[in-house]
């Protein structure tokens, strides 16, 4: 049999996939195939996976076919998390990563800058992006958003802080998605929030608060009646060259990779040192898991905000409580 060598088949013919309009409006009669693909982008700890499941369960309660799944690497707070919900009235012949979402739920707008998360990649023509932000316009000033899509926004995190006391927006994001897709009744959403939050062991009181939060978001948005179209895709399968150099070794030679990956963009809260109160005890310095605290000449810490990921361990450990916290991205 042929060996895998450097002669991998080079299929250089670019080929374009036929454009098929996809109808997502629920009450059309001549609906051959209705499928809505929702992709959630969040950070570990925000509840992206639970959001995709609440939307999934709510749609399942409505009698739809559903598939939902998350992708994440090694689990850690702050790392980008992606989750998907596919909703259809027929068999779902899809699986894994949603490359071409009809609706994107951006749970943390700073992810728009992440080269890893690739948030807006593949969104379908006339699809929609929901931004967890006070104003989509401000986001638009900071990041480039694709054209030919609709944008909706709502500040879920502030509502969650207010109603739950925590920046966890699983129910809020699911509510936003459910409302925008327009296939789910409010009662089904509520049922799904209860089911999914019971599943992960939340207290009755917390579940109630989440239901209220879900209701609030649901009633604050309007369905989008999405009718998206497949974007033109260009696919090239590339030959792999025979590797002759160190490129084929897994070794990390360069130090300081976190200087490239600015983990500071993960923060929801940022620690701020109150130098009046600080006694230069260096406890924070010892505890910071990211070495994002650098000691100044006077022994007091200076925070490297490019790499501080906002875990707030320093805030919790500081003996005289000389570290305060401030909500990040409040400007959005």
């Amino acid at each position, binding site marked *: 049999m042929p060996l*895998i060598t450097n002669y991998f088949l080079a299929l250089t013919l670019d080929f374009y996939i036929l454009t098929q309009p996809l109808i997502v409006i629920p009450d059309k009669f001549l609906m051959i195939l209705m499928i809505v693909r929702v992709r959630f982008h969040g950070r570990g700890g925000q509840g992206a996976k639970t959001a995709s499941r609440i939307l999934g369960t709510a749609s399942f309660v409505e009698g739809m076919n559903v598939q939902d799944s998350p992708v994440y690497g090694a689990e850690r707070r702050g790392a980008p998390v992606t989750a998907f919900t596919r909703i259809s009235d027929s068999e779902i012949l899809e699986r*894994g990563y949603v490359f071409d979402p009809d609706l994107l739920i951006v749970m943390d707008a700073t992810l728009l800058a992440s080269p890893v998360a690739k948030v807006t990649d593949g969104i379908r023509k006339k699809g929609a992006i929901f931004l967890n932000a006070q104003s989509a316009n401000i986001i638009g000033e900071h990041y480039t958003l694709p054209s030919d899509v609709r944008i909706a926004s709502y500040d879920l995190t502030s509502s969650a802080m207010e109603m739950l006391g925590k920046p966890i927006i699983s129910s809020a994001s699911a509510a936003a998605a459910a409302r925008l897709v327009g296939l789910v009744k409010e009662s089904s959403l509520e049922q799904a929030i209860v089911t999914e939050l019971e599943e992960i062991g939340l207290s009755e009181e917390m579940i109630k608060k989440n239901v209220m939060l879900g209701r609030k978001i649901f009633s604050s948005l309007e369905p989008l009646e999405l009718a998206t179209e497949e974007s033109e895709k260009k696919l090239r399968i590339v030959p792999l060259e025979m590797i002759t150099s160190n490129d084929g070794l897994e070794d990390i030679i360069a130090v300081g990779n976190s200087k490239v990956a600015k983990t500071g963009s993960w923060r929801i809260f940022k620690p701020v040192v109150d130098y009046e109160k600080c006694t230069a005890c260096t406890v924070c310095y010892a505890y910071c898991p990211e070495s994002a605290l650098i000691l100044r000449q006077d022994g007091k810490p200076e925070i490297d905000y490019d790499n501080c990921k906002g875990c707030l361990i320093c805030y919790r450990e500081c003996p005289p409580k000389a570290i305060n916290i401030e909500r990040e991205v409040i400007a959005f």
Partner: protein
Amino acid sequence: MLMTGNMAAAWGARLGRADYIPAYPITPQTEIIETIAKWVRLGEMDAKLVQMESEHSMLTAAGAASLAGARVFTATSSQGLLYALEMLYNISGWRAPMMLINVARALAAPITLEPDHNDVLAARDTGFLQFHAETCQEVLDLILLAYRVAEDSSVLLPAIVNLDGFYLSFTREKVTLPSEQDVSTFLPDYNPPNPFRANMPVSKGATVLNGALYSYFKYHMHTSSIRALSVFEEAALQFERIFGRSYSPVEPYMMDDAEFVIVISNSFSTIAKQAVRRLRERGFPAGLLKLRMLRPFPSSLVARYLSARRGVAVFDQNISLGSGGIIYPEVVASLYHRRNRPQLLLPVIGGLGGKQITVEEMEKIFEAIKNEIGAESPDPIFLMRQEELETTKNMVRTAKEVQI
């Protein structure tokens, strides 16, 4: 119900009335054991769950308990399976029909969490029967079927049911749960031959120190494994009568008049099916043959379905380094003596370490089959999209060149 593949596997143990579950944690199978542990604690499942100190001990305990007559269920992934590998050969030699779930995860190094099939295929020569699932429903159903086949007195071999990490393990979809009553009709209690009993001494897996004896027993295992195919087919008929879902060792999809066919297994079959459907809409005669049973290898069925097709691609989500895909040569061997074998058998390797595959990539494979017909010896395709290679190269560069 909506449930993950892991959850469906746990239901397989529960509905299959497994009564002994030795366990050792590894991602991405952990949810299976967590779920069973919860049921056992709440008294919803009548089974003994024991946390062992390694996968090797876990499998040793599993095999021994099976010989004592327990219905045994356990699960692992990746390195865990390899750590237990030595015991797999023992357990099949003991003729202990236990159930092992493998949640596929690519092997280290490099370390990753996502699936390919080098882990489960490392167990292909062990004597374990192997069934590979595409959907969460299949995970549950194949566990019930596999118990039935494994425990059949003409088979008596252990079984592995494979499901892909992430693509099934953490993916929720609709699963219909059969009733306990129907399952016990389909899968009666295990009736072990010569179980360990205090009042009836029996030795199992005795030392033979004799090549002829060894050969005899190995050959016996081999024929028992081959027999599992017809036992499966028979069991599947009854399964369909009771539960309404039909399973064969291979699943043809749009094969009736297909000229170009992809042979594939596991969860990526779904994406390939979508490609087939889209190509059909454009008038391209594509078809798909899914391998559901990997051991015994269903050679005659593969040959029957693939004969007289123009071109066939074999999609291997695994790699035997220095050779190529593992399934490819098995398909070639199945077809070699057929007079009307396809003109082309194209080897494709894709999805290693869970590399995502788009429907367009699957379509491209069909295009390649068509283009390569008539080629002297077709070059293997190693799927890698341009943007993936670019991202990879950037990461490699970052790892090597960045200086502070």
